[in-house]
């Protein structure tokens, strides 16, 4: 039904001044434009500096960089679901739109959270190819198209931590490393040179918070913006961990 009033966007954002601050909701009403997404709405709020009821407000603090869903910065909980804010198109969301920071990670301010735990996990599993040096040693190992087609999708993981946010096992009780890290173990264990650290990587997934904490809820694979086959990676790495653990038992 046509109305005389201009089309608007209703959006509610959960704000918090500091890590120990009290979370509170703030509401905004923005003029609608074609092609808007959650990030352009946050930009608009910064430029208008006003809440829905006309109070002056500060710009919202949030993480964002590439706005093309490839840097992994802008994961947020939007209408109750974890997703990337840059690809969250306003016209495809029910209003009022709610935007909250990730719940499994410490809030820094407003929508900005601290996800450094993932980068620490990547150190723990040695997620790299052990290069001797960057001097000229000629070409790398030949690899089949099939191997490249298997590994490239895993290598597109953007470290957004959506899989960890959605995982019921990722919490302080389990210390679970989460799906993203396990997929990287699969990636490097499958690489012709990276394979040489396979044993150490699997060892790292055995102790506290290791791969056995996965409860196969399959939430990770549902929320992954890059549609990485996380559960497949987990079951394959899990099998490798098991084989190694059993082997270790006999070696003792």
């Amino acid at each position: 039904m046509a109305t005389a009033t201009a089309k608007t966007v209703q959006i509610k954002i959960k704000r918090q001044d500091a890590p120990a601050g009290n979370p509170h909701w703030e509401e905004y009403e923005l003029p609608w434009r074609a092609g808007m997404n959650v990030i352009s709405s946050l930009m608009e709020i910064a430029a208008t500096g006003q809440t829905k009821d006309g109070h002056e407000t500060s710009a919202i603090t949030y993480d964002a960089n590439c706005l093309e869903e490839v840097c992994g910065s802008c994961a947020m909980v939007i209408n109750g679901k974890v997703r990337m804010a840059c690809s969250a198109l306003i016209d495809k969301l029910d209003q009022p739109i709610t935007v909250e920071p990730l719940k499994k990670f410490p809030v820094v301010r407003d929508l900005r959270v601290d996800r450094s735990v993932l980068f620490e996990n990547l150190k723990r599993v040695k997620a790299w190819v052990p290069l001797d040096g960057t001097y000229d040693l000629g070409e790398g190992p030949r690899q089949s198209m099939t191997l490249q087609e298997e590994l490239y999708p895993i290598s597109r993981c953007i470290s957004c931590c959506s899989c960890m946010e959605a995982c019921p096992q990722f919490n302080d009780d389990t210390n679970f490393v989460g799906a993203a890290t396990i997929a990287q173990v699969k990636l490097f264990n499958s690489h012709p040179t990276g394979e040489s650290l396979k044993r150490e990587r699997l060892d790292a997934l055995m102790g506290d918070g290791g791969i056995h904490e996965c409860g196969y809820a399959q939430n990770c694979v549902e929320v992954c913006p890059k549609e990485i086959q996380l559960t497949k990676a987990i079951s394959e790495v899990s099998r490798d961990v098991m084989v190694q653990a059993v082997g270790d038992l006999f070696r003792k």
Partner: protein
Amino acid sequence: MAAKPKIIIVGGGLAGLAATIKTAEAGADVDLFSIVPVKRSHSVCAQGGINAAKNLKGEGDSTAKHLDDTVYGGDFLANQPPVKAMCDAAPGIIDLLDRMGVPFNRTSEGLLDFRRFGGTLFHRTAFAGATTGQQLLYALDEQVRRFESENRVKKYEGWEFLSAVLDEKNVCRGICAMDLRTMEVRTFVADAVIMCTGGIGAIFGKSTNSVVCTGSSQGSLYLQGVKYANGEFIQVHPTSIPGEDKLRLMSESARGEGGRVWVPKKAGDARDPKSIPVNERWYFLEEWYPKYGNLVPRDVATRAIFKVVYEHGLGIDGQPMVYLDLTHIDPKILDKKLEGILEIYEKFVGDDPRTTPMKIFPGMHYTMGGMWVDFDQQTTVPGIFAAGECEYQYHGANRLGANSLVSCIFGGFIAGPNAVKYAKGLQGDSNAERSQEMERRRQEGINAKLMSSNGTENPFRLWRELGELMTKNATVIRYNKALDETDGILGDMIERYKNINLSDKSNWANSSFAFTRQLENMLHLSRVIVQGARQRDESRGSHYKPDFPTRNDADFLKTTKASYDAATNAPKFEWEAVDTSLVPPRERKYDAAT
């Protein structure tokens, strides 16, 4: 000088990580500063690939031909010896990246596959799907993470560079930076600093660049005396997807894999593009440039699209847009080679480019200009080096597609060891504490003034004005009258900045405060771009003036060098001869055989 030099690297994109690796390998300690976690740097956005004349397709490609394509593509404005060094090093860089585990696409023999890109007739571009930059950045990030776990590199992620610490003789002794959580301002001592701070897209408001690409660090260093070269050369990418928050890149690889650009021959033709018969479509790039077709260099393609839209009035539905069509290509091949970019279009526009021609338009993409550096990657201030998009060295007046990734890595590889060498020969600062203290106080003073400002100018709105102004008058088509007016407005904006309104006075993770600081540097850098363009009365590469439509080597085969003049609060200019010792300049024409 200590036995083990300390090198600070600012920026953790491809150039910064490449410099970090070489610096650590050369035996120095590295402190690596980045606004974002380095894995989230803008290099991830590079899509199509990385150039190297590996000649794996039996075409007779060579590094000499790569050099020729690059300097010709750049309209002869680049000094040629460093370009030659880069092209010669490129095949080795690809091999190294391959050893690091980059999942490059393969041939049936298991060798690297190569695709064609703009400005060359050879298959010279190695690629990892359509997210090559992401894959390269990750490979370097993983190696740096390894160094970090061995305590050879210390990362400062979430810190923003504010300025260089200079001693009484104007020699760099470290940096001043701000913690973006606590807003604490600190100085860090170093024997040399390598700046790898990337592009300046935010100066143009919306661009294909990431949010952090403001050019603020370059602007800050320019204000401290670092000279800025060829600022007027701004690359506008012919194919971007217009958006509310940014312009998303549609990679040149779409054309490299056979994508065709066209418009309906009839103005305002409202039919579904697929129902328009081929003889009623105008493939204008193929008609105007039969040899290179859709793969002419970016500046040429961008001007052609502007011409078709604004002079012929043939934009789709009367809008500034043309079709980029992939629908004639087997979807299986598209998925294999272009999936990443097709996904971007699908997600952000909602149409499937496998079955519907994409709607695209040129968008600001890259700065060829940047901080002036010598062949060792050192700027005009001793101890400050630069690599990657923030310096000017490799691309002349126009960058060829897939040359940026190689220039970032090569520049970083050159800068790292040269910074270490410089550091080893450096005399100590006799008044070290004073240099650090003075710079910290100066920066804290700027912060205190900003925090107490009670003006009326909203920084985000001022930024929008800046972006619209710069995009309108300082990108594809330039007129002296409009440039003069723009410079006047920029001067006013620098004055208006003094009356800024900072609504958020908090001392914790205050992102609008950080942005407001960046804005001042952006305004000053904008004047360098605009005045540089004003003074160059010719057309060369990306710089096009209808009133001076041809290249003028007699007067302008010169590098523009801008330096900040404190007395006038504006740039002053000098010009430097270009080293064309390897490839004699010739007319640049893509519509006939070269």
